[in-house]
């Protein structure tokens, strides 16, 4: 079964800006799915329509086979959403925010309190349950938004930039919890600027730009299509002059650091051998960019040149 099916979704804002230009998207039940795209690509509009925060212009949305137009209550009951921006009553205590949200989903107060306690403990917020929202740190507010989104036990959880502004330790803890939820059967869709997040968490990825889906694929298959990768090589001794090796693009960053661009099919062993033959010894190496980030930039660049060509 599909957790989400979006067909020919269009959104034209009152200003005339067309944020979505006929988006088609399918997410399988149980998937961990990333929606990638630059700012203004249409990610938040797409999520806004699916979660009933934005009115669509045309097209259809189905969640677990319930149509948003005809069965909005069934669709909303299946969905949990963690928005990009904080949307709390800042003067309410932490626990009350989650209990009220459970109430809006029709969960009786006693049950709502029990679920709130479980989630706040799970997300390390229980000690702050009586604090007013405005007194929480950014990371705590993000975690509370996850607790709030989960209190009605949604089958599909949508997170819009869930770890923006969260420090590394908390981000890792949130990733672990999201993996745990996914393993328990919750379908997860996330948008993120941290492409490492998508590469680390998500099995499938869609790239959206200019209101169109540019690619949908398994994360690993998509990475296999990466045309070039850039590696940073740390050298044992300072370079006298930049080595010239046919087929490899080399750039000197400083006297003991080289950047090497490898196209698909080129071997790192060949590069190391060629460098060794010229007396250059590599002591360590790392990817300059996250691989998905590099792929994403390539795809967006290709998409834009295609759009320009179409416009011309």
């Amino acid at each position, binding site marked *: 079964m599909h957790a989400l099916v979006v067909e020919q979704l269009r959104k034209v804002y009152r200003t005339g800006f067309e944020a979505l230009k006929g988006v088609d998207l399918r997410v399988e039940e149980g998937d961990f799915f990333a929606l990638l795209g630059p700012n203004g690509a249409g990610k938040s509009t797409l999520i806004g329509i699916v979660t009933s925060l934005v*009115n669509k212009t045309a097209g259809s949305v189905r969640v677990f086979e319930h149509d948003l137009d005809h069965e*909005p209550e069934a669709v909303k*009951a299946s969905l949990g959403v963690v*928005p990009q921006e904080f949307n709390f*009553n800042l003067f309410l205590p932490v626990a009350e925010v989650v209990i009220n*949200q459970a109430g*809006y*989903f029709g969960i009786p107060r006693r049950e709502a309190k029990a679920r709130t306690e479980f989630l706040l403990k799970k997300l390390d917020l229980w000690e702050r349950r009586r604090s007013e929202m405005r007194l929480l740190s950014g990371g705590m507010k993000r975690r509370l938004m996850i607790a709030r989104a989960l209190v009605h036990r949604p089958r599909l959880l949508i997170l819009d930039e869930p770890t923006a502004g969260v420090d590394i330790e908390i981000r890792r803890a949130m990733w672990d919890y999201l993996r745990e939820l996914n393993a328990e059967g919750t379908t997860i869709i996330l948008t993120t600027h941290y492409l490492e997040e998508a590469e680390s968490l998500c099995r499938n990825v869609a790239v959206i730009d200019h209101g169109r889906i540019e690619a949908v694929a398994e994360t690993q298959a998509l990475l296999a299509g990466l045309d070039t990768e850039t590696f940073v090589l740390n050298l044992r001794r300072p370079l006298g002059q930049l080595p010239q090796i046919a087929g490899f693009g080399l750039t000197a960053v400083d006297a003991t650091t080289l950047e090497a661009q490898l196209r698909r099919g080129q071997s790192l062993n060949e590069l190391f051998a060629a460098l060794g033959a010229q007396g250059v010894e590599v002591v360590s190496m790392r990817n300059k960019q996250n691989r998905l980030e590099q792929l994403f930039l390539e795809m967006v660049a290709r998409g834009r040149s295609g759009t320009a060509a179409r416009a011309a």
Partner: protein
Amino acid sequence: MSARRSPVVQRWYRYWVTFATLLNKEVLRFSRIWMQTILPSAITTTLYFVIFGRLIGARIGAMDGFAYVDFIVPGLVLMAVITNAYSNVVSSFYSSKFSRFVEELLVSPAPPWVILAGFVAGGVARGVVVGIVVMLVAMLFTNVTPYNLAVTLLVFVLTAVLFALGGFINAVFANSFDDISIVPTFVLTPLTYLGGVFYSIDMLPPFWQWASKLNPVLYMVNAFRYGLLGTADIPLSIAFIIIIGFIVVLVLISLTLLKRGVGIKQ
């Protein structure tokens, strides 16, 4: 909730829980800030009774066969109900729009009519609480006891419903905190003061009597005055038709706005 209950019963139970959650949230909200929400009306009404009732009222004499201080009781109580029911909903719903926590409701399966009922019930609750406080203050200065308790309570609640709905519509269209004070200042206050709170329209020249009858607040004040004192300038049936008619129209407008997401969805 027992799984054995039918889906229809379960659905209505969920609606009830949502409604109760909204009402509870609203009551807690105005109770927490009671010095801003409940106390001012009690103080203002006390001043009205002291100045207009005791000091000036003693020189005015009887009106419609009642001491002036008694005559103004229904209007003052209803004025407090109108102001508080309206301002509770307008400020609560606009705040939820402004700080975007209205999204908590929009993503929930609560249908528009349950959301509307929750906010309106919150406004009615505050109107009723403040109305009771003002009535208690009135009883310190007068000997008024309800002439017809059923009419008194019905007008009391229906008026609160009507103005809570008005506050909701105002909040939907408001784009700033200024917008939520314009209607109370420039529409509600004049309508209330010219709605026969302090005088009987029989005192007015014929043209102004006719003009006063275009003011819906006049019908509410007079119906409430009938409930408390047993006297009114307007037939009771017409007053109820007008109040209920306004409520029906405002409910339809509010639900249409909510369903379309006017002011709350892009």
